[in-house]
């Protein structure tokens, strides 16, 4: 590890001198130069027993003159005095004053010869020299990487490079711990700020992670992502326009064995009937996969309507939608409350998008008339349990269908993992899977029997990898699963969360089961406060207005109040990473996937 002196040497000439300081804010007086908000500075210090290097980030710049009169007076003289000039001093007259926040300090431990990063609890010395981290100096980036090592992460998903001013430090990659995927992630940014590119980078990161951790003797957990792709861009990215290929290009570089182990049975699901390549599948679920709670998670339901739906589900189980849409509620209904015809009609109307011919996603289910269970859901769940990246092209699906698919996958996976946690033997696991999907034969409950049977069948043949021979696996042996919720305000708004949305439970308990949500939204204010508080990682990009920025700051899991001004000037592809898994928030430039892909040498 480099010593303090070596690090200082790597930083180049001194930029300025510390003028005033507190543990949270510093004022530095520096020579005149081209500077930008967000510039990164290092302050070497020998105040304590061990050498320290403070890391400081500017939030404000001002032009000043070296203890001469006020700038206003000078400007007035320039305006009103004929033949005046501004003499050129050797260097010291025109200065800049910069203020900013102390991110913390790295302290060198002589015994372990390593730098450890600390929150800003101690002050730097008076009149400390200040060095600017110049993105054009690779050795300066190396110094930052060494100092911030514990905050940058040396394992995990690379989501970009640390920003110094307006430019990224290419030698300082910032990684998101893989565990963040199961601790819920918020991705906030207005349209055009680079969210899609970020998600593409994230998907690429997960694929890389799985590839790197694949193989005998590797104990790292794999990761899965289920990503709705409303614009069908992640598969081919910009290949058609001459840019980088998307996930198709990545998986095409895999060996046959890797395709089997890391991609099969599919990575791309679509509503189109015509498939363009291998490892693609037509996405379809069955009415038998849908529960009243799924619908209440995506649609407005009154309490009466949801109660009626639940009663219907209790009576008819997986056939409840078919019965309702066919008007065949039967005369043998169990004793229970009677519902008004208006309530029944309202539920019918809400389920209108599931009627045959109205949906390309949901297939009919009525074994009595030969309509068997046709659903990709069991295979989707199995794939996610094997560590897969699944992108779902929803361009041909309606908005409600898109939300429904997301909801059902999340809920079913959550139910499966709960069942797994309850089981200690293979047989008990099979039983718990049935229970998890509402099937209770002794009490005459049908529940989602078809789905449960399919899952148990896959459990038995090994496609659902919950068994290790005769041992039931622990949750920790399964991949971390991340479910991206695009247009999150539509399903995670306060009104929807009120009526027992499946996302309510997942947001609160998902991390226990290794399932995390990815909340993607242009607005922070529209997301339910309960969900926001559960987000352990926020990737905040440029936001539309001050209200959104305030809310982003308020709900962040790390204190990013001092970044308020920087949030205002974030460019395309730049974001602020705040995560409870790290001590400090970091501004990051996400690589343009087109170039990142080209540079990866894959």
């Amino acid at each position, binding site marked *: 590890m480099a010593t303090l002196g070596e690090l200082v040497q790597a930083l180049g000439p001194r930029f300025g001198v510390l003028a005033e300081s507190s543990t949270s804010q510093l004022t530095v007086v520096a020579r005149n130069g081209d500077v930008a908000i967000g510039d990164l500075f290092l302050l070497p210090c020998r105040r304590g027993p061990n050498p320290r290097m403070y890391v400081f980030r500017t939030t404000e710049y001002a032009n000043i003159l070296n203890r*001469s*009169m006020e700038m206003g007076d000078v400007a007035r003289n320039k305006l009103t005095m004929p033949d005046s*000039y*501004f*003499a050129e001093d050797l260097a010291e007259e025109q200065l800049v004053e910069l203020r900013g926040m102390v991110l913390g300090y790295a302290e060198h431990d002589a015994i372990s010869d390593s730098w450890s990063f600390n929150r800003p609890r101690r002050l730097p010395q008076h*009149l400390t020299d200040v060095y600017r981290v110049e993105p054009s100096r690779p050795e300066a980036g190396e110094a930052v990487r060494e100092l911030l090592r514990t905050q940058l992460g040396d394992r995990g998903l690379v989501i970009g490079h640390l920003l110094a001013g307006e430019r990224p430090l290419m030698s300082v990659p910032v990684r998101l711990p893989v565990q963040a995927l199961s601790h819920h992630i918020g991705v906030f940014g207005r349209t055009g700020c680079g969210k899609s590119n970020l998600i593409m980078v994230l998907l690429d990161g997960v694929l890389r992670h799985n590839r790197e951790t694949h193989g005998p003797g590797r104990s790292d957990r794999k990761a899965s992502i289920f990503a709705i792709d409303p614009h069908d861009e992640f598969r081919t990215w910009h290949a058609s326009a001459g840019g980088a290929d998307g996930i198709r290009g990545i998986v095409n570089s895999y060996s046959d064995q890797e395709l089997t182990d890391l991609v099969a049975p599919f990575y791309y699901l679509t509503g189109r009937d015509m498939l363009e390549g291998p490892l693609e599948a037509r996405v379809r679920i069955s009415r038998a996969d849908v529960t009243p709670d799924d619908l209440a998670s995506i649609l407005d339901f009154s309490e009466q309507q949801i109660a009626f739906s639940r009663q219907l589900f209790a009576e008819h189980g997986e056939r409840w939608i078919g019965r309702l849409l066919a008007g065949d509620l039967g005369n043998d209904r169990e004793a229970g409350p009677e519902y008004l015809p208006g309530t029944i009609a309202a539920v019918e109307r809400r389920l209108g998008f599931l009627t045959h011919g109205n949906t390309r996603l949901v297939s009919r289910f009525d074994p009595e008339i030969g309509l068997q269970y046709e659903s990709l859901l069991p295979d989707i769940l199995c794939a996610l349990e094997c560590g897969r990246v699944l992108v779902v092209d929803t361009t041909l699906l309606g908005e409600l269908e898109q939300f429904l698919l997301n909801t059902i996958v999340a809920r079913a996976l959550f139910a499966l993992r709960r069942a797994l946690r309850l089981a200690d033997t293979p047989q008990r696991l099979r039983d718990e899977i049935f229970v998890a999907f509402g099937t209770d034969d002794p009490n005459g409950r049908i529940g989602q029997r078809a789905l449960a049977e399919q899952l148990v069948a896959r459990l038995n043949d090994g496609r659902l990898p919950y068994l290790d021979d005769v041992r039931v696996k622990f949750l920790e042996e399964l991949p971390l699963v991340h479910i991206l919720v695009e247009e999150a305000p539509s399903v995670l708004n306060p009104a929807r969360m009120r009526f027992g949305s499946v996302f309510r439970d997942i947001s609160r308990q998902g991390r226990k089961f290794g399932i995390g949500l990815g909340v993607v939204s242009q607005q922070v204010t529209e997301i339910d406060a309960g969900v926001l508080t559960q987000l352990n990682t926020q990737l905040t990009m440029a936001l539309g207005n001050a209200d959104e920025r305030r809310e982003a700051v308020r709900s962040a899991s790390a204190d990013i109040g001092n970044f308020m001004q920087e949030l205002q000037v974030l460019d395309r592809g730049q974001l602020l990473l705040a995560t409870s898994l790290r001590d400090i928030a970091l501004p990051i430039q996400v690589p343009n996937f087109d170039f990142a892909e080209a540079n990866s040498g894959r």
Partner: protein
Amino acid sequence: MRFDLHLRQNVRQRLADMSSQMALWDAGASHSTELYSRLVDAIQPFSHTTVASDLFVGGADGTGDFPVVAYGDSFVYATVAAATLYESDPVHGLREVDTGLNPLVEFTWLSGSAQQRTASLLDSFERLAGHSVDEVILGSDYPEIRSGGRVDVGTVRAGLIVPPAHDAGNVGVQLRTTAELAAALRLIETAPPGAFVFTDGTMTLPFVHRNRQSLFFEHLRRYCCVRARERGVTFAALSKSHGLPSGVRLDEAARDKFGQSVPEHWFLRMPEADRDGWSPVPPDGPRVPPVGAVTYLFRLHRTTPVMRLDLDAHHWEVAGKSPETVRRLFEALDYAGHDQRCFGYPYPIKAAHDRASLSQPERVALKKLVVDAAIGAGLKRSLFRDASQATGHA
């Protein structure tokens, strides 16, 4: 002090009495018509100068913290001085020249012991001046212009005034002036021939009429004059106020001379009885010009006051009194006074002042540095407790 002081009747009465005396004194000042017309005749114009070539103008200024730290019977004084040199430049007006001179910084420890403080103060003088005290005394022409003529260097050295350590006012004046002149001396020895070097203040020699006692900076001032003459540099002291009695109606005379409400770009050499046969200053008034100097009063710009320039009289007699030379001097001052930061005042002096001046945070930091160093050397921190602050007097 209580805030209601200004409301008390006896306070207001005392102020009224004093103001009446001031007004009476002002009214009683000499208003000789002949004197006034001579003043008007003596005032000369010079050009508003916006173009200059091969012009070098330097400035020097000193400051410090007097004292920076006090403990027991000891006091530590910090002194700072800086000098700047600028060259005329068609793009920037003035462009600073790298002289390679660093700012002077000196710490002086004075104790209750006369022997210690004399040695310590003279050591500081020597470090600042860059020459030994004897070299300065011998090289200076001060003994030639003072009362009593030349005496041996040992006697002069023994007659140098060393104030008590606690006499911050006098110690401060000596250290600051010495530092300023020391910075100017370095500049004089560096600047190209023909350059102008200005210090802030006057060329007054306070003890020049005494036989035995003198101040080190008096010798140093004259040493600067000698060195400037040797190198062909014009050395002068510029004061922002002329310090003349109110009876000397300069503004009025300039108005009458040029027929403008606020005339600018004019100068006048201060007449003296010995040289010119008349003086606007009464015999018991201030000694202007000072011994060994020639004084000019001048105005650069309407927004700045009438200022005073003291030149070495010897230099003036030999090389500085021709109308052409004098005009060039004031045109140089005018050109150097067009910086937007201090329009109407020569920028090199302001630049030197800015470089040398200490802000309050810097004073605090300096004090901490001195105390930390002392503690590092073995002194106890308790020695440096500020009694005034501890007792609520600060």
